């Protein structure tokens, strides 16, 4: 309570007219344009919060305005702080905070693309929509139907025409490349074998998920779409969404359901980390390690199938609980399989770290300093590998994580080896967590039978996905979300790649890109476009004054 008062006082000190309310672990403050930047600085730097995301919303049908929600997180005290500001319906302009909070760069441009909100004090450009998308068509505005198909002339984008801001030869990585498992495009500028600059163009895999969730689907149906945001970490999206609605509506799900969610989340974490470890060593040419890691991962997929009926895309989450229970004979089988996984994984890791090329190439490469990690508010193993002690499971406990003890591995070197070791340690922690959860699994129902979801409620849900914190922000509507914003962890981590890739050998570029465990399906649920139809001048993306940002 003391910390909440402190926040309220600090906000009032900057903006005396701020309208503040507290809902659980979230402080909502409606602020004016004039004070937004000062408040952002106060919260982000003076109060040492992290930036989670920002979400634009078309609230003209509710209050006549557009709104922008900047969401900050005080992990140390388990709080979310949401700064809401309104924009004029006819000419929506909001001051940019991206120079103060570098991590806000992309989400501002996302709001710019999808809602037409202009941001003053920064250079703007299309980030999400394709080059040929009409200029005045903003998909997330309420008058635009989810199934609109504008008449367009599809044009391809010029490759390598990035302006004259970089030296070096351009090496394209993507959109199709053996090192990438989803379509993304990195343009590396190299001098010899050294990367001197990087350009990124993403968002090839847009599926209009947010618009779909706000238009066509019911609350319960969105669970299943949320799980399909990602093929590797889908369940955590589904949990994050369900928790957001439950939080907004004040729904308390049964304890047993919380435990089941947590167990399946940890199973997903283990499978995801094993997948990543295999891919990482494959990128280093150690295919033996890759094959054996994925062989071990097969046991985890079997656990998932035992518990949920599916190896992946489990489909067990609903608002109000889960659809599938765990019976007693499954518990023992899960424990037996986990024991075998732990043993084999230990042997494999011991072998891997003794392969000289593995350690040589992981150590000292792709460095992200703690300072840069903090500025960019990176999340997950990327953050923990750079010395940032952040884990939402511990800091803002959700589901059943409040009932278990676990360590949060943190390494300070900020290199690829640190991120590798964080994930290795997290596999062991996840195994331990599952054992504790199974041991303490309470009896009872797994689903609430009846509940209401009132309109106009808001909530921020944060879940620690395998790649980092995933955020779902919802505003409830009638029978479906009024606004559903998803910020996946990779979305937060990709901007750090430019720092990590600079001055690195070209040979380490795929490994460094992979080290953040990028999930582009998660990241790309929105689209970005250059307003002239060509991604010509990526220097338009630059946030003035900060050379860490994408130029």
């Amino acid at each position, binding site marked *: 309570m003391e910390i909440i008062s402190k926040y309220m006082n600090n906000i009032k000190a900057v903006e005396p007219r701020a309208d503040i309310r507290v809902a659980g672990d979230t402080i909502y403050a409606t602020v004016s344009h004039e004070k937004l930047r000062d408040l952002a600085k106060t919260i982000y730097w003076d109060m040492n919060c992290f930036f989670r995301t920002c979400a634009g919303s078309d609230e003209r049908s509710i209050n006549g305005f557009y709104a922008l929600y900047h969401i900050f997180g005080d992990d140390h005290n388990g709080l979310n702080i949401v700064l809401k500001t309104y924009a004029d319906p006819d000419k929506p302009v909001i001051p940019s905070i991206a120079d103060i909070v570098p991590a806000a760069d992309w989400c501002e441009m996302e709001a710019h693309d999808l809602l037409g909100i202009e941001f003053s004090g920064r250079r703007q450009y299309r980030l999400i929509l394709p080059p040929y998308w009409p200029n005045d068509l903003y998909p997330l505005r309420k008058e635009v139907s989810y199934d609109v198909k504008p008449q367009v002339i599809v044009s391809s984008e010029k490759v390598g025409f990035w302006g004259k801001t970089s030296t070096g030869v351009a090496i394209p990585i993507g959109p199709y490349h053996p*090192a990438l498992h989803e379509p993304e495009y990195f343009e590396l500028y190299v001098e010899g*074998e050294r990367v001197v600059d990087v350009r990124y163009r993403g968002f090839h895999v847009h599926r209009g998920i947010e618009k779909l969730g706000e238009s066509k689907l019911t609350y319960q149906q969105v669970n299943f779409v949320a799980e399909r945001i990602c093929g590797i970490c889908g369940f955590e999206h589904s949990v994050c969404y369900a928790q957001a609605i439950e939080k907004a509506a004040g729904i308390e799900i049964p304890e047993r359901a919380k435990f089941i969610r947590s167990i399946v989340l940890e199973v997903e974490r283990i499978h995801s980390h094993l997948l990543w470890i295999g891919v990482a060593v494959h990128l280093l040419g150690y295919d*033996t390690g890759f094959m*054996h890691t994925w062989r071990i991962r097969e046991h985890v997929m079997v656990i998932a199938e035992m518990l949920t009926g599916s190896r992946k895309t489990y489909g067990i989450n609903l608002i109000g609980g889960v659809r599938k229970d765990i019976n007693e004979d499954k518990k023992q089988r899960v424990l037996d399989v986990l024991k075998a996984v732990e043993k084999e994984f230990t042997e494999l890791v011991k072998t891997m770290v003794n392969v000289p090329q593995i350690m040589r190439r992981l150590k000292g490469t792709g460095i992200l300093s703690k300072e840069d990690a903090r500025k960019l508010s990176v999340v997950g193993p990327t953050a923990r590998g750079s010395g940032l002690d952040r884990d939402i499971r511990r800091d803002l406990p959700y589901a059943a994580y409040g009932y278990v003890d676990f360590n949060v591995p943190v390494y300070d070197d900020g290199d690829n080896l640190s991120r590798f070791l964080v994930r290795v340690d997290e596999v062991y922690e996840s195994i331990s967590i599952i054992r504790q959860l199974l041991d303490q699994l309470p009896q009872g129902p797994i689903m609430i039978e009846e509940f209401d979801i009132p309109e106009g409620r808001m909530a921020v849900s944060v879940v620690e996905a395998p790649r980092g914190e995933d955020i779902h922000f919802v505003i409830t509507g009638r029978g479906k979300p009024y606004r559903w914003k998803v910020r996946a962890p990779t979305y937060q981590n990709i901007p750090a790649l430019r720092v990590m890739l600079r001055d690195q050998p070209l*040979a380490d570029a795929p490994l460094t890109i992979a080290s953040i465990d990028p999930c582009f399906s998660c990241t790309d649920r929105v689209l970005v476009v250059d307003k002239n139809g060509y991604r010509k001048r990526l220097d338009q993306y630059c946030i003035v004054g900060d050379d860490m940002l994408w130029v």
Partner: protein
Amino acid sequence: MIEYLISAIIFTLISLLIPPLMDGVERKIKACIHSRVGPPITQTWYDLLKLFEKELVIPEGGLYIIILSLLYVMLVVLTVVSTIFMVLIGYPYTLVIIITLLLFIQAIHTTIPFITSNPFAIIGASREVILALVNEFFFMIILGLYMYFTGSPGLLLGSPDLLRASIIVLVIALFISAYIISGRIPFDIAEAEPELASGALIEFSGPILGVFMYSNFIRILLTKLVPSILILLPFVNNWLYLLIYSLIITIGLWILYSLVAALLGRTRVDIAPTSILKIYIPFITVSILLYLMGY
């Protein structure tokens, strides 16, 4: 003479047929280590034949690449034929000819990707050059020292003088050189698929890729055959048996190298030369010292 001719033809045919088969064996061994079933050992031949059936796509660099690729394969085949023939007849300058032909092959192998303007191919070829500057250079030095220590540019069949420690050390270094030339992990940095999307080979497809890969397999066989012949020289008194046993050892080496490659990761272009130097310099130094000491 007829016997030599028939033997030469048989060995040539074997040498041209075996390499893709051995690559298939290598894939099978790798699969076993990976706990997989793996493809059949004839898979590499299936792959090559399939490539030869595909449409001919002229890569960037056009006709030059096709000409050089054909020259490459002809040179490789010529080297196989001439090596077998020279061994069978005990040609006095065998080693000199072999070094020359192998270096020609390597030069063409490295040059072809440079003709394309694909940045991945050029980077891959550059990496190949960096490796070759170290590895092939020491390959020449080692063979040169061998010829100097033995006092002959040819093969001294059945000579007990070849059992000297200084010479054995040089031959062991040649076995290592053969591994590096074969482009296996950790030295497959010219292709390095996750980094360079096939690197030096990126512009090749269909029959051209088939020709290139097939030539590579034969080149790998040749580089193993040379040290195999040299190590057997003191123990064999018949050229025909020398060739037979050398081929058997070459096959055994291929299997051994497969095991080694499966247990390592890929090095990096800035690390590889240093790693190679750390191997060769001690070997050469020890060999020279042993020679000076009379061993």
